[in-house]
């Protein structure tokens, strides 16, 4: 097991280097002029001014030197400063990463709460109304664009009842209830329509579909047939025998949806005014803030890889058939 973990950690290296390098090159191919941006849009950038800014920011060095220097610093925790605002990036990310992780974690839980019952039900009652109706609703929910749903959630209660979600973001550790209100219950505790829920709904279709397929597969296994033939009650067969085996792959696949959730967070943080990584990233892309985009992407890649590793380890723990050498 230790060797497996070590090998996985070792394999992270090419992924991180490859991913950040790809971005590093791509972002420099954007036809904007970052020097002009720094000098100010009304500045007349003479060659001297350009050279001065380039040397100040180390942009005059060859690209591979720039890349290694940046990566080296980043690994040591020094992400540098935003090109656009001059604020240290590490500090910003420390405040924002927990926010986005919280948003995505709640979304994961929400998607499981919605998807598991529907997936199971539609599998054990395949091709009946109990399959069609809930599944239709789940897929329908998935089909609605998150940004559209989010805007409806902001606009309609306001137009109809002059209600508004909480105006100000509160950190989880400062006031957990106020924080939960923002993420899940913006209009009071009986109306779960917060950003985490909308994000979770987007994911629930995928989870539901997977649960259904896994259940269908498990249900035709021999041991289930044996359980039926022993005359066990349906509930016992489904819950005791089928469910556990069907859910292991579901949970692991759900864990792999982190990149999807981060994409959703970019949009929902913008609309719901949540100071997370997604909003930071989006503003940075818009403002040609190379250093910020690079750093945020690095952190996202590492987060995704580490969480995948954790999931795989859990998988091995849950399913005794899996052995890692």
């Amino acid at each position: 097991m230790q060797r497996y973990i070590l090998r996985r950690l070792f394999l992270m290296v090419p992924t991180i280097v490859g991913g950040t390098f790809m971005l590093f090159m791509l972002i420099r191919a954007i036809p904007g002029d970052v020097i002009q941006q720094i000098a100010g849009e009304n500045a007349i950038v003479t060659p001297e001014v350009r050279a001065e800014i380039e040397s100040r920011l180390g942009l005059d060095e060859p690209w591979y030197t720039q890349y290694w220097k940046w990566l080296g610093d980043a690994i040591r925790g020094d992400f540098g400063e935003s090109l656009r605002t001059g604020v240290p990036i590490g500090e910003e990310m420390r405040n924002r990463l927990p926010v986005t992780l919280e948003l995505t974690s709640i979304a994961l839980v929400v998607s499981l709460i919605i998807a598991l019952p529907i997936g199971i039900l539609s599998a054990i009652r395949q091709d009946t109304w109990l399959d069609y109706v809930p599944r239709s609703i789940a897929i329908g929910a998935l089909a609605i664009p998150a940004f559209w749903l989010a805007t409806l959630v902001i606009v309609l209660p306001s137009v109809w009842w002059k209600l508004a979600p909480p105006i100000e973001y509160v950190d989880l550790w400062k006031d957990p209830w106020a924080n939960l209100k923002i993420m899940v219950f913006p209009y009071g505790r009986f109306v779960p329509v917060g950003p985490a829920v909308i994000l979770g709904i987007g994911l629930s279709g995928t989870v539901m579909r997977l649960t259904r397929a896994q259940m269908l597969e498990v249900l035709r296994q021999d041991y289930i047939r044996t359980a039926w033939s022993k005359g066990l009650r349906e509930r016992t067969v489904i819950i005791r025998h089928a469910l556990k085996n069907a859910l292991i792959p579901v949970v692991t696949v759900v864990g792999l949806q982190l990149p999807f959730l981060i994409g959703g967070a970019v949009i929902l943080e913008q609309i719901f005014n949540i100071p997370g990584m997604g909003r930071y990233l989006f503003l940075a892309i818009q403002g040609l803030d190379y250093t910020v985009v690079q750093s945020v992407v690095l952190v996202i890649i590492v987060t995704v890889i580490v969480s995948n590793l954790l999931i795989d380890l859990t998988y091995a723990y849950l399913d005794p058939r899996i052995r890692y050498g």
Partner: protein
Amino acid sequence: MTEPRSFWDRYARARMSRRRALQLAAVSGGGLAFAAACGEEEEEEGKTPTAASPTAPAEGKPKPGGTYRGTVSLVLGYDPIKATTFLTHALASYCYSRLLRYKTTQGELPQSEWYSVAPELAASWENPDDTTYIFTLNPDAKFHNVEPTMGRKVDAEDIVYAWNLYQSVSPNKNNLGSIVDSVQASADKTQVTFKLKQPFGLFLNRLASFQDLWILPKELIEADGDGEKRMVGSGPFMLDPSSKRDVKLVYKKNPDYFEKDEDGTPLPYLDALELAIIADVNQALTQFAAGNLDGIAVPPQLLQTFRDENPKATVNLALRNVLSFIYFDPRTYTEGLPPFNDDRVRRALSMTLDRDALLSVASPEGGEWPNIINAGMGSAWWLDPRSAEMGEAAKNYEYNIEEAKALLSSAGFADGFDVNMHFSSSVYTTIVPYYDLVRQVLGSALAPAGIKITEVPAEYGVYITTTFAKGPADGFAFGLESVFTDVGMYLANMLKPRSAGAGRNHSEVDDAELTAMIDDMLAQTDIEELRKKNFEIQKYVSGKMYYVPVVTPLEAGASQEWVKGEVNTSGPTTYAVGTEGALTLWLDKQA
């Protein structure tokens, strides 16, 4: 529960006539009530209690105290000296002072007084000769009573320090740097003397500009290196350390602020001012409707709906002080690249624009036609293209497809031509929606004259740093100019050659005669004479159409009914919201 009036009966109600809109634009707040009371005909405007349910001229004595809750869409930084963006200047204007500021009043400020100056740190000034200005500082002015300044008095040395800082780090340093020769403090540190390189009639206006000389204390720069970590100045508010750049900025009243109202009550009235960071326009409208915000900006297209949803809110309309204009590939002027090198083509382009139709899309409640000077500068500075005074050049602005075609054909483009139109496809689309609306109409607007457009969008960051900063790569671009607060900024920045430091000469216009006219105008110290020459230049430029001005829409700000003491939002307070705008605000409600 209020049922929102559906959008389509809005059109059943009479559309506001242009004349009516002009009144709205010209006046605002209390001025509106005044206009109505004087029996101005309301034309087709129905009985709907208007429009801007206007604040009655501030009644009662201001009640000090309370917290005003506003919003900003984005915080990019705190240091107004290093910043290029108005976003930062607006935030800083609560905490820092300038020597002079723009004149404001509650209620109506006549257009002729827009962008005239009023004392701030400088209590008075004298002008012994054309190139010398001596300012006497307000003896009560102190920096904030917090680290690192601890309530120290502002003296003339501070002005000199701030000047040197401005000259060393500001991207806008040429605005004043090209004019001022030296800045010196008097021996007793109560007076500061500005020596100019040559006479410059707009010097006082320029000094009030919010892009330029903010007085940052020496201690702050010495401690932090720049003004990015905190804001410590001599302004009416102090940035509270609980502020978070991506959640909310909290400004607390500066109890030692040096200005008082007529009754001797210290200003500002408010105890605190909070700006929530809200990027999404729907979110802001929702929060306002729920009463969580005291004031917001409302896109003009949403005004009617807004009034239906918030019948008690006060709506102030103002002409937006941003020039929207078409600018050409610089090779047009540097190399004589056709087709736009021919002024007949440029004039034809302008004549093809039905500006009133564009306004009906971009700003349903009215607006104006800009000249090279934007209409938002007010009638003292902007020559209305439709006024008699415009003379010959007026026809260049009139919608006239036949004439446009005739001009094109005399220039050798009888069949029209194909051309690329560059524009920004992000950021503007959300923060100034009218830009996108106008842009969407431009394509079909130019088609009747045979000008066939291919749209070339670019992301904002790319657009600003390439097309806007260096001129479009080909064809023309549709753009928005920065907020300029005096005519010199427009003329010297956009029309003098780039070699003379004109950073906004997007198309590299180089017209020796025009340059001489501009220099001559700026050197005038008699303001009336200067205005006259300014109008002459506008006429000249309108004849050449080096840039094609498009439209000046209205912008709208809305406040809750309990917000009192608002100054007019027209003109100067658009962005320098701090000292001009928030000083006299008060809240007529129980805390």
